[in-house]
């Protein structure tokens, strides 16, 4: 701990010595050029929106495949490529290759990076060997490898500028998420919630890779970088020892709260936003207390790491509803007032609209009507349980206790939405959200902790909601009213990141492998094409040589590839129903391809 602290101090001194770099000014400028796609989510606000409109609702039906690229890797391909000028950067799951393609030279491979990693990291990754993509800043491409190595590659040559180890895979820490470049730092989270890792977000110096600060999700105040007085939750100071007093003994040391989702940034408020994951273990009986700050939205100052505000969505998790999903930042008018909003679609099935400057909770509503574990969030500001979800006893695995199978909980552990990022269009002021429509039985039981070994402690089985056979929906959501505007049923969970465009078209992929284009206003399907494998990647757009392109990675896998590959069963329907639900393996097989679409010339 002390070592961490002194490293943080040194980092702060280095910042002053070097003066404030302007990587984010460069990135903001670049992300305003709609021809490029310079950040994993398109911009700092995580909107996944593009101003390009050559492809529009009237002509998208004529879309054709322009070119394809095989990554040479199988298994789950999450994330998507970056496009900067004539260069495209494509990443892969383990072994985490990166290809730099020159779009002006028939997509020739300019350089390729392939790290040597110990394959023993593969089984430590909870849900396939996914990676959610690279980030750009200061002429470098940043990659968080499976073995937690954060590496900076020269964007022109692929040469390693620096690399640093962000965690210990021997203890179950792995790298799957995408970094975020802010000012003179690159920020990165870490995975390992199923291995009892004490997770954190860490900032490294952009030029040298030297650690600037590290903020854990749980632990003493100095480790979690929370100020008892100045850090607030729902407007009130969090107080001293806000985290450790919500854990029994030293359990916070193996407490999870992992940070494998997406980071966003508001330059005007100078705050970064992200969520923390499930507390370890999945057996709630074994870890009494609220388990702060797992399942929490964090707003932190990227220069110092200090938290400005926090909000715990699911205190004392009983269902594995990680809070890591992306925070989407939008400026909208609410009741005649201009508000700086943060919208977040949580695994727990609730969509939150908050004031991102203050952390005030404005809306918390279910974005799948089947969500049943809670009757809703207490919105009464004078109530002692203000901001807490009311848990129904029938679906409480804590109430049920160890060795008791609690049935019919919606959503399932994979959440109403997982990491697959939603998109926001300022044109329609709607959010386009890929969702899961799956319920579960959940039986917690006692487990013992061994470093580097799974620390799960629950048995679960998943199935579609009773009486239904589709396992996903693609929805349009109004964050001001907390209501679904339209909803498209999908046979399987929608595990692909959405893209909204000024052409009035929204794109997403499906687990069978379809790239789909729908009307942003009505949801009407305008185009679909079946790519070589199931899509869990995020749709991207860019312009090159005067043409607008749509790009997406195919390569079925991830958590979706585990549960759905064999098809789900309905345990309530008895043996007769086995095979009644479709098996994904009947529709698609492993792959690793980038498919790029354009209108015919």
């Amino acid at each position, binding site marked *: 701990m002390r070592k961490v602290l002194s490293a943080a101090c040194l980092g702060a001194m280095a910042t002053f010595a070097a003066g404030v770099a302007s990587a984010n000014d460069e990135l903001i400028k670049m992300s305003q050029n709609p021809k490029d796609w310079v950040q994993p989510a398109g911009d700092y606000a995580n909107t996944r929106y593009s101003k390009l409109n050559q492809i529009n609702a009237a002509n998208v039906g004529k879309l054709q495949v322009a070119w394809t690229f095989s990554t040479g890797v*199988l298994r789950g391909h999450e994330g998507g490529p970056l496009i900067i000028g004539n260069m495209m950067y494509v990443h892969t799951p383990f072994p985490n290759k990166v290809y730099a393609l020159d779009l002006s030279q028939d997509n020739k491979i300019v350089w390729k990076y392939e790290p040597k990693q110990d394959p023993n990291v593969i*089984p430590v990754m*909870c849900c396939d*060997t996914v990676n959610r993509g690279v980030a750009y800043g200061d002429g470098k491409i940043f990659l968080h490898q499976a073995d937690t190595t954060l590496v900076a590659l020269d964007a022109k040559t692929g040469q390693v500028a620096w690399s640093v180890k962000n965690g210990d895979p021997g203890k179950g820490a792995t790298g799957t998420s995408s970094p975020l470049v802010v000012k003179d730092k690159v920020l990165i989270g870490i995975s390992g919630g199923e291995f009892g890792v004490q997770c954190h977000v860490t900032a490294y110096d952009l030029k040298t890779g030297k650690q600037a600060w590290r903020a854990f999700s749980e632990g003493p105040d100095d480790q979690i970088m929370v100020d008892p007085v100045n850090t607030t939750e729902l407007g009130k100071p969090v107080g001293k020892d806000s985290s450790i007093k919500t854990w029994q003994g030293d359990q916070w040391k193996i407490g999870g709260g992992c940070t494998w989702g997406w980071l966003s940034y508001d330059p005007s408020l100078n705050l970064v936003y992200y969520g923390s994951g499930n507390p370890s273990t999945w057996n709630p009986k074994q870890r009494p207390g609220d388990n702060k700050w797992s399942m929490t939205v964090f707003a932190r100052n990227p220069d110092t790491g200090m938290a400005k505000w926090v909000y715990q969505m699911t205190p004392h998790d009983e269902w594995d509803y990680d809070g890591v999903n992306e925070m989407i930042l939008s400026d909208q008018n609410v009741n005649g007032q201009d508000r700086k909003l943060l919208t977040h679609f949580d695994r727990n099935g609730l969509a939150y609209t908050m004031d991102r400057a203050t952390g005030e909770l404005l809306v918390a509503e279910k974005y799948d009507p089947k969500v049943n574990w809670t009757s809703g969030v207490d919105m009464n500001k004078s109530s002692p349980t203000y901001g807490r979800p009311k848990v129904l006893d029938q679906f409480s695995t804590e109430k049920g206790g160890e060795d008791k199978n609690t049935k019919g909980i919606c959503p399932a552990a994979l959440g109403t939405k997982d990491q697959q990022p939603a998109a926001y269009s300022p044109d329609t002021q709607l959010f386009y959200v890929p969702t899961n429509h799956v319920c579960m039985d959940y*039986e917690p039981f006692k487990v013992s902790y061994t470093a580097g070994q799974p*620390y799960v402690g629950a*048995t679960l089985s998943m199935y579609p909601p009773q009486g239904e056979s589709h396992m996903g929906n693609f929805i349009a959501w109004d964050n001001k009213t907390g209501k679904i505007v339209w909803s498209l049923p999908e046979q399987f969970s929608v595990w692909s990141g959405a893209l909204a465009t000024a052409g009035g078209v929204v794109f997403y992929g499906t687990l069978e492998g379809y790239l789909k284009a729908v009307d942003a206003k009505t949801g009407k399907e305008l185009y679909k094409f079946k790519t070589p494998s199931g899509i869990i990647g995020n749709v991207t757009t860019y312009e090159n040589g005067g043409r607008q392109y749509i790009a997406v990675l195919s390569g079925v896998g991830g958590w979706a*590839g585990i*549960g759905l*590959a064999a098809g789900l069963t309905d345990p309530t329907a008895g043996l007769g129903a086995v095979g009644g639900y479709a098996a994904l393996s009947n529709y698609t097989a492993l792959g690793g391809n980038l498919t790029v679409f354009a209108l015919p010339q």
Partner: protein
Amino acid sequence: MRKIWLIAATLVLVAPGSVAHAADDPTPVKSEDGKYLDKEGNPTFKVAPDGTVDWYTYSGYRRYHSECHVCHGPDGMGSTYAPALQDSLKTMSYADFMSVVASGRKNVNTAQESVMPAFGDNPNVACYMDDLYIYLRARAYNAVGRVRPAKREDKPEAYTEAEKSCMGAK
């Protein structure tokens, strides 16, 4: 925990690469404290005509869906990257099963990167190897379906004792 690991290690030495018998017969011929054994003396499942399963099959179902299904898929059906154990157990011997679970296995080449970790030191797995084997053997013979067994025999007293000492006092 340590005891179990040693047993597994011994099996590796005694029966390296042993092949399952083509004429494998899972019929239980005797029972020791609620654990059923086939005529070779290997652990096996017992499913009564009314669907009641032995304790080990039920316990194996639970442990499988905690520790194994995150790679091998629900009900031993496999995932996009890990083999379906309901098929593997059709040809894999008890000794091989114990050895792979305890020591792990690697198959890394240009076409695939399959790595099974060693669970010999993980009491959540090591203390329940027979449970897992018996459940998956029942799946391989289609003696239990893809759902949670509805009815089961009681937890044997000797089992409770053994579980306690294996898992430690935690």
